């Protein structure tokens, strides 16, 4: 599904190298988690994959189902099936959540040469999805993320994911700012979207999200690289012992 090869990235503004050769392959239907200390490049990886300005790819490639992502505009990547659930979803006053969702869904359908949803079709679909995710219909009428609690914002991200039906979903620290109940709701939403043709990359600091979203593979990222890969047990090991030993074993110091 997603194949990242030797990805090197620097911040344009400070000319600072962030990613130093990331290699990652995620198969269809797989859920991968990336853990790592602050500043290791996890969020940068998610932004670079989804096309945010401000980063310069100096080397490497990233392909979604064989299509080179790094040559596409952000909206083209979305239409190709990539979705990034933001750590801090943006508030957009004056634009209704429903209007935004419909604009996004139909823009993607149009880009893929599919017929756009009529107002009636869209309404029916969004109500079904919102109900499944236990999202109050009132939330759909409000401006995008304005006045939403942390949990509501994250659930709104999952609703967008459910409506857009991407192939590759990246969750950037979706657990941050969530209490246990909100996290469970968000995880249930993600789990409901898991299927054989949809893959996930879950970026997180903590094991607790992975209690609810069981990963197939866990990666540890540090100093701009993936330094270790393992099964779900690797996350438990990090939870129990922290990153220090792993980093030391790979000769990485001074990033904690």
């Amino acid at each position, binding site marked *: 599904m997603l194949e990242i090869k030797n990805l090197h990235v620097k911040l344009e503004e400070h000319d600072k190298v962030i990613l130093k050769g990331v290699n990652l392959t995620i198969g269809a239907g797989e859920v991968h988690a990336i853990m790592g200390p602050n500043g290791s490049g996890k969020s940068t990886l998610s932004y670079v994959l989804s096309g945010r300005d401000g980063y310069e790819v100096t080397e490497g490639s990233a392909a979604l189902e064989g299509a080179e992502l790094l040559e596409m505009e952000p*909206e083209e990547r979305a239409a190709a099936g990539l979705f990034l659930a933001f750590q801090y979803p943006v508030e957009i006053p*004056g634009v209704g959540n429903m209007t*935004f969702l419909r604009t*996004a869904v139909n823009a*993607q359908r149009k*880009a893929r040469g599919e017929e756009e949803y009529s107002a009636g079709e869209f309404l029916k679909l969004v109500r079904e999805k919102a109900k499944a995710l236990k999202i109050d219909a009132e939330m759909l009428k409000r401006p995008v993320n304005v006045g939403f609690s942390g949990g509501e914002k994250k659930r709104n991200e999952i609703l967008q994911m459910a409506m857009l039906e991407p192939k590759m979903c990246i969750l950037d620290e979706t657990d941050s700012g969530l209490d246990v109940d909100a996290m469970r709701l968000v995880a249930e939403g993600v789990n409901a979207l898991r299927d054989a043709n949809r893959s996930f990359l879950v970026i997180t600091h903590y094991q607790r999200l992975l209690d609810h979203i069981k990963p197939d593979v866990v990666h540890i990222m540090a100093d701009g690289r993936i330094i270790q890969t393992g099964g779900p047990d690797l996350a438990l090991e990090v939870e129990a012992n922290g990153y220090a030993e792993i980093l030391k074993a790979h000769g990485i110091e001074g990033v904690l």
Partner: protein
Amino acid sequence: MSAAEKMTPLEARLAALGPLSGAAFGAARAAARARLGAMGLPGKRDEYWRWTDASALNAAQPPAAAPFEAGDEAPVFGETDRLKIVFVDGVFDAAASDPLELAGLEISRLALAGEGHWAEGLYGALEADGQSPVARPFAALNTAVASDGVLIRVTGRPAKPVHLIYIHADATSDPVLHHLIRVETGAELTVLESGPAGARFNKAMEVDLAEGARFHHIRVQGRDHERRAVTGIFARLAAGALFKSFTLTANGVLTRNECVIDMQGDDAVAHVAGAALGDGARAPFHHDDTVFITHGAERGESRQVFKKVLKHGAVGVFQGKILVKPGAQKTDGYQISQSLLLDDDSQFLGKPELEIYADDVKCSHGSTTGAIDETALFYLRSRGVPVQEAVSLLVLSFLADAIEEVEDEALKDEIVGRLEGWLARHRD
């Protein structure tokens, strides 16, 4: 030297407007002419005209302006059940207008008003009061020479709004219209305005609100790229009166909208808002909102919310003042002026002012200039929204506070629809 060459610019301006078509309210007109003579036409040295070049408004003849080809664009407020009053280049068009009759209203025309008319003592009075402390020469000129306008006395709550429709047909038309609206105790009226009116347009509207009266004003200035307009609204609020005005401006070489509000009664409420969209690519765009709100009584609430979106060398000006007089305790005055610059060529000039002579008040003002929020833009694009559509959504988001000032949901939808249409037509 010919007679024309001997004239002062003001005399030439007045002479070019020609003889009055009606002689109504002669004393008020003479007084206005005297006021205008004393203050003269505005220039760059006048504090409130420093940022707006009045020369095209001062000139004896208007610069020629071709009427806009509307194409398939739907008429403004076309879906709203309303009483239509149409002026073509400032001339009343009876055939295109509805009969001037609606329960709760007395409507007559300035050009036909004679001695003893209910508006006789009111015509020009609020404009005259509004000349201090800041001179409004074009409003005085308007009172002196206005050829027509509507005089509306509101005694009830009419079932539908009154819609003043201005049509521009002649490339050199220079209409001067003066409307006067008196809303009696507890009565309520909504006035809609739309259209360019002429190659150059001078319009004044005096609004006198009695106790508990409610007045809603929604105006759409647009369509003509080459339009030049100066407008003045002069409102007086008695106790418990409510005044709400929202203006959407798109296109126009030069627009100067002045609003002068005198809150004389306790517990009065005045909200003035504007959203202006300027694209200087096809024709220059210069838009100036100059607002002066005086709190003269207790517990008054005023809001000024002005938003401008500018690109391709467009210029936006905001000059807003809240004056709180001694004794106007518990005043709640709020003023915000913001601009969104979509490129580096455009410009916003803001002059927020507070002048307060009471000690138990809550007044605030803010003015900002900024660009599109890149994080928000990326958020929308990451959902598959193409960049220009994403910019349009963020522009609508930016303007939302001002549009919120329109209470009627259907009219608000109409405004948003016009905005969306404009944004779709002005994508780079």
